[in-house]
């Protein structure tokens, strides 16, 4: 019926012979490969994701058999992408992971336990800031290696501080609040004295500074009605009510750095990434007119979050040895120093700070001091969900939608519900 594509004449031997020869050649070529190159997939987030490529190249140069394929993901999508990849079975070999997410992925049995490798290669674990190491060392084991540290400190305009009549940053809440009031008044006349981060971290940090435990009963209940957390939330709401801090930062304030440069905003809480942003965006005239300071606490220097990212290896990896090689690469002090130079992200090892960074970079003094006073978050897998509700209720209270006590009562109720399964499952994950 149709056309038969090949005529009988085409059934000659020539094509067959050609095919066989080619096959043999391919086989010989394959035999000459020294070893199969290992392909590692590596996920990095945010700015570091974009800037880490040159370091990866030097890794590949040092390990000829390993090729790293880097994927960058924006921070806003990172958590969701990781979880979705877990569900869809598409996790990479190695990834950066926020410290607060570590307990969850460990509970999901998605991570490789790293103690044997750390011991085998004799990694100097005492060199790491202890607050940071604590976030990776879970009761079940060591599940990540800190990649960089992140904490929240105060960024401020030094000239505006002087103008307000202060030589140094106050160390107590009371003193600090007085300063904030001075900043919105003449002669400084900033539109807002302080911008906090538009997420759950400010309230949680204030709570930690008051000594609140956030969760009770070994992480099985909410403990937000506790007097200490209540004081923290009240302080936060007070700052917003007094118009020292803008509400819902995203819409009221324009570009944070823009306003900081224009003197409309005198201070803000942020992390190390803002160092890079400020250096990139501020005009030269303002380059030295800002500094960082550790956070003031209720009665003295306060604690801050032990944040940061770690590197983890996922259990579904097929190249465990190579994956560990990549993780170990980042633990080397020289590499950490280079990483800092490229991205502005702060190294988790004290030796790197002492050797290289602090001498040159006075503007990081705030971080150096704060890193000795950091607290980890409760290591429960449900943290992200709980944090989202904390954020919601903090905003609801600050905007006047809910009263303080009612908000805390409801928050406790919701958190209790979130932790319900945790209470039911009394076993320790394998």
């Amino acid at each position, binding site marked *: 019926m149709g056309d038969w594509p090949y005529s009988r004449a085409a059934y000659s031997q020539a094509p067959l012979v050609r095919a066989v020869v080619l096959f043999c050649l391919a086989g010989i070529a394959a035999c000459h490969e020294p070893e199969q190159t290992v392909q590692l997939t590596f996920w990095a987030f945010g700015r570091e994701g974009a800037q880490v490529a040159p370091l990866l190249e030097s890794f590949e140069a040092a390990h000829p058999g390993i090729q790293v394929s880097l994927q960058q993901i924006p921070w806003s999508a990172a958590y*969701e992408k990781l*979880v*979705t990849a*877990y*569900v869809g079975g598409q996790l990479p070999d190695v990834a950066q992971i926020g410290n607060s997410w570590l307990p969850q992925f460990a*509970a*999901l*049995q*998605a991570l490789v336990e790293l103690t044997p490798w750390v011991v085998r290669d004799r990694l100097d674990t005492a060199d790491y800031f202890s607050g940071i190491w604590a976030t990776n060392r879970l009761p079940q084991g060591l599940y990540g290696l800190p990649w960089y540290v992140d904490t929240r400190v105060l960024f401020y305009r030094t000239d505006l501080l002087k103008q307000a009549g202060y030589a140094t940053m106050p160390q107590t809440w009371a003193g600090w609040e007085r300063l904030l009031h001075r900043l919105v008044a003449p002669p400084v006349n900033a539109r807002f004295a302080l911008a906090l981060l538009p997420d759950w971290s400010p309230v949680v940090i204030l709570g930690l500074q008051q000594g609140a435990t956030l969760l009770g009963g070994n992480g099985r209940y909410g403990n937000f009605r506790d007097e200490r957390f209540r004081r923290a939330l009240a302080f936060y709401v007070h700052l917003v009510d007094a118009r020292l801090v803008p509400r*819902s930062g*995203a*819409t*009221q304030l*324009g570009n944070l750095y823009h306003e900081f440069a224009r003197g409309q905003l005198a201070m803000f809480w942020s992390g190390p990434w803002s160092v890079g942003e400020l250096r990139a965006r501020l005009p030269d005239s303002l380059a030295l007119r800002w500094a960082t300071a550790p956070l003031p606490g209720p009665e003295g220097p306060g604690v801050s979050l032990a944040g940061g990212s770690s590197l983890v290896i996922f259990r579904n990896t097929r190249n465990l040895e190579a994956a560990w090689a990549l993780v170990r690469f980042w633990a080397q002090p020289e590499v950490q120093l280079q990483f800092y130079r490229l991205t502005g992200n702060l190294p988790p090892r004290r030796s790197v700070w002492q050797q290289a960074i602090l001498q040159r970079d006075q503007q990081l003094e705030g971080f150096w001091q704060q890193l000795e006073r950091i607290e980890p978050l409760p290591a429960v*897998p449900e943290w992200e*969900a709980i944090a989202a509700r904390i954020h*919601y209720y903090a*905003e*609801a209270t600050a*905007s006047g*939608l809910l009263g303080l006590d009612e908000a805390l009562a*409801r928050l406790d109720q919701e958190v209790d*519900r979130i932790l319900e*399964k945790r209470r039911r*499952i009394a076993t320790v*994950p394998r």
Partner: protein
Amino acid sequence: MKRSWTELRAATWFLAPALAVVLLFLFLPALAAWMLSLTDFDLYTFAEPAALRWVGLRNYLALLQDGRFWKALQNTLIFVGLGGLLTLCLALGAALWIHQRFVRWKAFWRMVYFAPVVTSLVAVAIVWRYLLHARYGLANQALAWLGLPPIDWLGDPQWALPALILMAVWKNYGYDLLIFLAALQAIPEELYDAARMDGASVWQQLRYVTLPALRPMIALAGLITANGYLQVFAEPYVMTQGGPLDATLTLVLLLYEQGFRWWRLGYAAALAFVLFVLMLGLSWMLWRQHRS
């Protein structure tokens, strides 16, 4: 007899692919969703499938006790009620306006008003997000021009939902307009002639001829629009992420968040079924109006 056998065989082959898809990807999941809603399927089930438990109607109970569910329900119903009403009114008004005898280039006007309907919801949501920007948006520019103070459309819990409704009306009225125009053109002239001979004014003609004739179509358009609005998702997802403070949290958005962000699949399935029942109820009510 022989032919009916071959016809049956042919029918099987013809129907098999389409029916297989409908069965596998429509009926089966609907059934599975019901079963899912009776379990405590969540993220940890992926780690330990054996720990999955049958919990009966517990998800539904949790749903009813969840303040966010009620908030989402309220928001969605407001969206349907207010948004639906506004959409229908605008569409009807515009259709009647175009239908006036002196208006020329009817097809052109119709095309213009229909344009937003074929656009991608995500893309227009992004455009509107900037139109409604508190400082750099045209909406507040227009307000300033009229001498009114600016509104933080997407940041103020009181204005966020109305802002989304405004956008939805803009996008969807063209579709209902089309239906109404076609229906208007189908009303026979004799009815109007008879009314005019009885001395009816323009308004009376509208009230006693046009609107009754349009009632089934209005009900139909209402049904389609309401069903669409019950499932509103992309607008809050793109523009406000359900905020501020859950002011624009809708049922499908809550479903997506619980199901695909927190992976509480059992809970989300229960939510899906509640929404389903709601849709059925609404459809039935409006269908009866359409039929009468």
